């Protein structure tokens, strides 16, 4: 374990910050992938953030950045990232943040982190406690567009599936067909006459299955999803299992707006 030192933001650090953030949260979905331009807008140019509220941590004798934090004069810790030696670097950053906010006369500090054992432990040790967070909700404007993204690079068997949605929100396709043939996948609006199987499903159930927050068995039992002919259930669920998202999501406060 090395010795770490904290330094303020220097022009050009945004590219390193973006790289570190994308690497640290690689296993998560739910956030805006960082670019230097987005980082500058969401962190440094934020009205309540000044250069004094941005901290970069590096190891003694090394140039590379191990972590950083962006704190507003409102007490919001907009972005927090410890890319290596997480427990120590997080402690170093939190202590620096405490020193910074001490003179600001603010009422509280708030931070969002992924439900990660190490980071949560460090936060509790530094005097923070867990509170209910705002939740993230998702929908789509086009099932065709969403499915087209989800089928890319999936190992799908040759199959054709029709989806018919109930309780579709305004402006979203009600019927969608997916055709897989010789590795090529096409998703289109409307019924495919040659489809082997038709899935009739509540729109909300379909989205919950795709985003990994609802189980297919439960939706079938509750009759929110029906498969015709019923002996093709395994094919329909097999397709959805292959395209559904597997990763959990995390959003930093800086993405909140």
């Amino acid at each position: 374990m090395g010795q770490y030192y904290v330094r303020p933001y220097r022009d050009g650090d945004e590219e390193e910050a973006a790289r570190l953030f994308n690497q640290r949260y690689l296993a998560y979905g739910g956030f805006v992938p960082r670019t230097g331009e987005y980082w500058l807008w969401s962190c440094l140019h934020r009205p309540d953030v000044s250069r004094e509220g941005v901290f970069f941590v590096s190891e003694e004798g090394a140039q590379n950045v191990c972590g950083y934090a962006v704190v507003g004069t409102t007490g919001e810790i907009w972005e927090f990232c410890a890319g290596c030696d997480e427990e120590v670097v997080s402690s170093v950053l939190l202590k620096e943040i405490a020193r910074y906010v001490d003179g600001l006369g603010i009422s509280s500090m708030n931070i969002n982190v992924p439900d990660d054992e190490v980071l949560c432990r460090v936060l509790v040790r530094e005097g923070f406690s867990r509170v209910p967070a705002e939740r993230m909700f998702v929908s789509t404007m086009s099932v065709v567009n969403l499915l087209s993204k989800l089928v890319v690079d999936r190992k799908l068997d040759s199959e054709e599936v029709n989806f018919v949605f109930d309780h579709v929100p305004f402006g979203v396709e009600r019927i969608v067909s997916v055709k897989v043939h010789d590795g090529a996948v096409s998703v289109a609006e409307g019924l495919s006459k040659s489809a082997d199987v038709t899935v009739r499903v509540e729109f909300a159930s379909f989205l919950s299955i795709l985003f990994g927050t609802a189980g297919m068995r439960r939706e079938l039992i509750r009759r929110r999803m029906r498969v015709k002919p019923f002996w093709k259930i395994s094919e329909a669920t097999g397709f959805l299992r292959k395209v559904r998202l597997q990763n959990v999501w995390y959003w930093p406060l800086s993405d909140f707006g």
Partner: protein
Amino acid sequence: MSEPYSCRPFRNGDEEQVQELMKTIFSRFMGGDYWSWKYPLNPGFDPSLVVVAEKDGRIIGCNHWLRRRLKIDSAREVGAGLGADVAVAPDFRSMGVGKALLKFVRTANPSKRFEVMYIFADPELAKRFHSPVAGYVPAPDRTVAFTKILSWVKVRESVSSFNKKISEGSGKESLGGGVSVLFRVASAPPLFLGIRKGGVDVYEKEAALERRADVTIIGDATTLSSLKEGGSGMWPMVKALLAGRLKLRGKPWKLWSVYRNFWVFREVFGGKIT
């Protein structure tokens, strides 16, 4: 019957009215600078994703969307629209303006059919408003929030306006008085609330510890959240007690006084406290 208002895309010249509307709704944090930073200065800003509701030349509602790339799993990014600030002028609320704006933004941009639309919202609000209109479902969200309370300045403000209401006789109930409570909340300085007939006294940090409290409430920040959940009655508190997250110390008849004055704590902690 003519339409009481009409929806249209944002256009140059609307800035001032939209900012004014946002300020009236989000007075605590939405200053003019904040709006300019969040929208026109945003690298992904697209004015066609801001829509307004207009009545006789006056902007009475607005709905802002931000175009973003969104990572949905370790290898996949999609075009996404973040549903951001919605504001409706107080005299036009409960007239369906919010829903009309939401529908309009979905139809006004046929070329911008985002793969994912997302919002950050209170679950109750999402269930009541967003899900029926746009089919929102919970994301696979594993985000947790932490807080560290450094001072009770917002509770002091809340107590001050509560006392004003009491002195003006506009409080819903009258104060029974005669009980004092010391809150020892993890990750927060000690807080003393003394309820008397004329109002509530508040002390924090060392000054709170110097006073003799009838009852001590020990818990974590979630305890305060349970105090805020007014619609759920006492149940969140009872749950916290049973789970050991909340401890009460004091003489039984004083605990009864705390129970009788529970509405006061709800009033005091009901607003924003961090």
